[in-house]
């Protein structure tokens, strides 16, 4: 992806430049809002990572001006403010997503990926895992010898994992995508649900693997 980062914190900026390079994205980094706005007018860009507090203008204003110019580039806000009211303001100004500091590199990558999918109307992931067929209407996994039915949330979780196959999915990202929850509910609810999904997917011919990476999240891999 072609990305633009607008962030005035040099340390965070430096880190993000590294992450995006590792992930294979092209990233331009501006420390102020005005040059970023000018650059966007003349360049193709897949998504903007935008800090809310900038030295020359606040991020909300920048997005409002961007949208007023008719540009629909997806914008992801970075902010140190976590209140719902702030997030609502961010989305109301024309932003597409909102990420609170501190955040995991994988969280940022997964969200950018989701924004890009939405913007390009990407097709959902495959309809097959190994030798198993997926039936999204009845939420069933059908193998030669067996049929497994999933609960609605289990199905959504599986879909999110499949859509980001091979990537680390942070717990917070899954909570938001699957349950629409933006806080840590304390109890290991995601762990429990992942375990349950793992057990259900232990079907012959359905060679998938959901790995837990401590401190980071989960990775979905289909062996086939």
């Amino acid at each position, binding site marked *: 992806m072609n990305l633009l980062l607008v962030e005035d*914190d040099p*340390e*965070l900026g430096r*880190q*993000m430049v*590294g*992450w995006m390079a*590792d992930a294979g994205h092209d990233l331009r980094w501006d420390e102020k809002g005005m040059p970023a706005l000018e650059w966007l007018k003349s360049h193709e860009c897949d998504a903007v990572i935008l800090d809310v*507090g900038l030295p020359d203008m606040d991020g909300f204003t920048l997005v409002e001006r961007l949208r007023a110019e008719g540009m629909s580039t997806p914008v992801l806000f970075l902010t*140190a*403010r*976590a*209140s*719902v*009211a*702030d997030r*609502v303001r961010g989305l109301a100004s024309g932003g597409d997503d909102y990420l*609170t*500091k*501190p*955040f*995991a*590199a994988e969280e940022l990558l997964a969200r950018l990926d989701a924004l890009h999918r939405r913007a390009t109307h990407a097709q959902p992931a495959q309809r097959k895992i190994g030798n198993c067929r997926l039936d999204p209407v009845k939420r069933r996994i059908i193998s030669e010898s067996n049929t497994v039915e999933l609960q609605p*949330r289990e199905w959504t979780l599986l879909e999110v994992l499949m859509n980001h196959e091979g990537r680390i999915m942070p717990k917070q990202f899954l909570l938001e995508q699957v*349950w*629409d*929850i*933006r*806080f*840590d*509910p*304390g*109890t*290991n*609810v995601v*762990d*429990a*649900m992942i*375990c*349950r999904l793992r057990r259900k997917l232990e079907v012959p011919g359905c060679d998938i693997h959901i790995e837990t*990476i*401590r*401190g*980071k999240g989960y990775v979905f891999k289909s062996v086939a």
Partner: protein
Amino acid sequence: MGLIVGSSIALTIFLVRAAVNQDLRRADQAVILDDLVGYAAIYAHTGLRGVQDVFSAGQHADSNGLRIMDQAGHILYEQMSEAMRDYPWPIVAPTDLHKRGDTQQSAIAFDTAPYHLSLGAIRLHDGNTLWFGLSSVEAERYLSNIQNHLWLAGIMAALVAMLPVLWYSYDVIHPIKAFTASAKRLHLPEGEVRLIAPTAIPELKTLASVINAGLDQILSLTRELQSTNDQLAHELRTPLARIRGNLEALHNHTDSPLAEDAAARSLEEIDRAAQLVQSILTIRAGDHGALRLHRQATPVSDLLEKLVDLFTPAAEDRGLKLSVVPGLDLMLNVDRELLTQAVANLLDNALAYTPKGGGIIVHWHGEGTGAVICVDDTGPGVHPEEMHMIWERYNRGSAAISRHPGIGLGLSLVRAIATAHSGMVGVNNRELGGASFWIRLPQGV
């Protein structure tokens, strides 16, 4: 009000009328006595003819009558109007008039006539009796005039008396009502409601300005709290983000499993610290009415069913049965995310303290226009002395200290969120064992 004024005027009229009536009767009696003696004297000097002449010459209205009868009861002379004739005049001479000049007075009421007849009798020198009657028609007319004037005066007086009442209503009651209406909106998050009453009396205006000055101060403190909260969040979260980024780099690029594990643990700690900062700031703002709420119409059933759905796998892993009792379709105007977090904290609490094999039941009911959300468990319950304490920051019940890690912010966060919604929280022990934690929320505006 009209009833009071009307009845007080009526009472006045009744009393005045009774007093005047009594005076008039006395005056009538004096007139009758005077006339009796006068006619007796004329009769003595000039006989029946003289009486006739004098009576006829007098300007007697319809209300006077004269009758002279002998000792046998024969009427010798009579002169009166038709109306007077309707009264039952006595047909025999009174027996107690023994000697010349004796008089007697009586009053005769008559069913069909509206007035009564005051009657006097005098024994004449020749033994005959002279009756003189005076109908009350004049007196009644007089009384009725007085009554009409009294009504007029009473109503005029009442109207004049209403002026201070109207003043009281417009300059005192009206502003107080306006104050009450404003005061009911004081809990609104904007905090910009003020007491306004331009027509109020000076004392009330002073009261309003004193209260408004206090409210201004509260608003400025609230805004200050909000802005320091924002600043604190920024000051704390930005360095956490920098550290987190570097730890991730360490985690991803180290070859040492030991270093990778240390980095993973540190990442978990950083996330916990960030959550903690958020909780503390939310509690601080919620307890002081400075939490910015994003209210939206929220179906209670939907919110609770989703949460139970989220916690069910974790509950089953712990050998607990988690369920929600279907209830009324209630809509609350609340900050959906914060309320979800509050109930999630209660569920987290219940999962932590309920022993294996137990159950957790989420249920709700309407109360007034609001709702009460309850999370019942089959855990050890809460010691009565700790029922208030557990909601305080950093306080944990005795059941918690030995067995579970944490620093005791969960319940204070629940309380702060409820407080920010003008609601309440509480806990009671259930009869069958276990605790029931509840959040009471008003409908919201």
